[in-house]
């Protein structure tokens, strides 16, 4: 290798350092050095551990940080919830709470007729259960239907397709409280909608003050706010259906309706079940948006299970943590059951 004269080498170095590529190279070398130091430290710490635990055992070490966070913030509160459900009094600290066995659950289930909350000892809980049932049925059905229609429309070659997809998705980006406040301004007694009603010469309508109207608007608003998300999932499902199937059906003389029922819907079913499970779980957990919109009223017309738990446990003059925890156990059991049934049905309907 020919040696470079010292002066030429200096010139070369001077030239190379001043060029942007060489600056980048130097920066790269610096970060590589830092990375090496970091990796060496990790190796220094982990190597003895791996020697002791073996390669398989190391998996637990990597899972540990996440498991700790999950344990502290999810698992521990769940266990505490169990404990609170079987204890009484208004004391917050577990050690100060006397054990009452099944008393809280037995109070919740003490009912003459489960379909008539007035016959139940804890009537507001059963009102909340009944309200949640009605909300789930109407909200999920409407949501699935609207999402499907929107997805089908957005799947066609439309002018401004990207714009329309964004428009449908936009409400999903809003905070539930913001959604509730915007709609409150529209629906309240002196709101925009009543201004329109009055300008048409009609009497003001208590959109949030009549139980039936409030229940109706709660469903409408939640569908408006959430359907973009489910539309997007269904749209992805629709786009995964091979176009050859439609071409073949068309050659065989199938109408669009027949194609929908025989090709689109069956092939969309796995995606549809994901959407149904997700929207059902979310519907049962309804709280924040409705709480900000109606506060659970008028009366208890829009009090759902989560709000009942919040009210009894945290927002009442005498905090009844035991009853609230028992109610959340009932709700958790119900959600578990629902998910299991849905997954079972989903598995059966999958096309293999």
């Amino acid at each position, binding site marked *: 290798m020919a040696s470079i004269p010292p002066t030429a080498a200096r010139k070369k170095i001077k030239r190379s350092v001043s060029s942007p590529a060489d600056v980048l190279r130097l920066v790269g070398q610096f970060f590589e050095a830092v990375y090496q130091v970091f990796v060496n430290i990790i190796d220094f710490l982990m190597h003895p551990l791996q020697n002791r635990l073996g390669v398989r055992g190391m998996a637990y070490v990597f899972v540990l940080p996440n498991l700790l966070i999950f344990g502290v913030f999810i698992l521990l509160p769940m266990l505490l919830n169990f404990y609170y459900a079987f204890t*009484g*009094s*208004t*004391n*917050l*600290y577990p050690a*100060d709470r*006397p054990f009452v066995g099944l008393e809280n659950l037995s109070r919740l289930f003490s009912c003459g007729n489960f379909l008539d909350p*007035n016959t139940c*000892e804890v*009537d507001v809980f059963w*009102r909340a259960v009944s309200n949640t049932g009605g909300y789930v049925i109407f909200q999920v059905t409407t949501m699935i239907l609207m999402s499907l229609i929107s997805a089908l429309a957005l799947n066609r070659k439309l002018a401004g397709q990207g714009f329309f997809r964004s428009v449908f998705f936009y409400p999903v980006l809003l905070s539930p409280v913001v959604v509730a406040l915007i709609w409150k301004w529209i629906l*309240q*007694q002196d709101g925009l909608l009543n201004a329109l009603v009055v300008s048409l010469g009609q009497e003001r309508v*208590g959109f*949030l*003050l009549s*139980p039936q109207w409030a229940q109706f608007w709660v469903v409408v608003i939640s569908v408006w706010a959430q359907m973009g998300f489910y539309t997007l999932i269904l749209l992805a499902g629709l786009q995964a259906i091979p176009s050859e199937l439609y071409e073949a059906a068309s050659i065989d003389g199938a109408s669009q309706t027949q194609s929908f029922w025989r090709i689109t819907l069956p092939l969309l079913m796995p995606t549809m079940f994901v959407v149904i499970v997700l929207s059902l779980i979310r519907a049962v957990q309804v709280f924040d948006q409705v*709480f900000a919109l*109606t*506060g*659970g*009223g*008028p*009366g*208890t*017309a829009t*009090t759902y299970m989560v709000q009942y738990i919040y*009210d009894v446990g*945290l*927002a*009442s*003059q*005498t*905090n*009844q943590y035991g009853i609230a925890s028992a109610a959340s156990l009932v709700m958790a059991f119900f959600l578990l059951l629902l998910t299991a049934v849905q997954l079972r049905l989903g598995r059966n309907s999958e096309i293999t």
Partner: protein
Amino acid sequence: MKRLVTLVVLALLVMGTMSVYGQDAVELRFAWYSDGNEGEVVRDLLDRFEADNPDITVILDEQPYTYILEQLPLQVEAGEAPDMARITAGERYRGFYLDLRPYLADPAYWEASFPAAVLEWLRPVGEESDAIHGFPNQFTVTGPYINRTLFEQAGVEVPSDSSDAVSWAEWTEAATAVAEALGEGTFAVAIDRSGHRFAGPAFSSGAVYFDDEGSVTIDTPGFRSFAQTLVDWHANGLTPLDVWLGSGGTYAAAAPYFINGQLALYMSGSWQISNFATNIGDAFDWEAVPNPTGEGGSTGMPGGTAVVAFAQTEHPAEVARVMDYLASVDVYREFAERTLFIPGHQGLGELNYQTELPAAKQALGMFAAEALHISDQAYMLQFGPSGFAINNPVRDRLTQVITGELTLDDAITRIQEDIDTALATAASS
């Protein structure tokens, strides 16, 4: 020489550090809520305190009233209490208060200045205690206000102008005549969504919540009578529905309707005077009228706020200095005069309220007079050991009657059950 310079530099550094630490003030957190200008006034007073006491900084956490009702109790129970707070439900935090007595400059001054019943209200039930946990910084009485301008515009005589004992039925009739004469947008009557606000008219109508042993019974003809009146106001469109139906399960005031000049008669209380003086001023003629009279006489509900200290504080001596300052005669007097509050201090003498507004002066005089004939039932509800369990079930169950979810009979049964359960649960604690 070099060593000497090093030593001097080190000494300067140490002195600098010490002086920085020396200047660090103790930081106290004070949870506060406001109906009117009291947050502004107390901040001003605390600024003066801080100027004279540079070793203490008081952070005033101004919160909505619902925070005081719903969040503060959990915070206190969870061990995250502020050092001090302005509260309304004194009984709620029994056992969590700081005993200020060892730290106060003159505990005897506190005992002489503040009503014994209020100091007792904060102490644990059933225990002999001379502890001092805080002081009442405002005394309140519930009672109605009228918009005289609306009565005049409608050509309806104000019933209390010609009679000292006007019933709720007579007020409702007169106020309805005002609303009908002035048409859309004017409401006859409204009452805050609160069991406490409901109680005064219920007692005046003949309700008796407590027997001689202190046991609670809700189902009395007086209770039914005013409950039915409340339901009828809603059914007949005499009251803005938003107040009782549009606020979910929480407290709601009808003050905005009164301030906007849309309400002929408003059942609220003395704490609204500053709010009305600021937000209505002399835009229309408003005034306080005596509590209506019925089978049970004429009574408002007592109430008020207390400034309390919590035992979880790490700086009890500094907390006591702030409390001593706020409870001192001059500071308390200035607070009451500037906020237009009825004081809970017995030694202030004549107050020179800082308002030139005749309506505010009239209302202050009216509520001071109303405070003299508050019934024993009303005092028991506010300061007795069972009072905490009553107001919210009354408010929530009557709302269910208004929406048609329950009949009045069912609601009364449910209120009684809710109260019994709450008392039993609290007793097991």
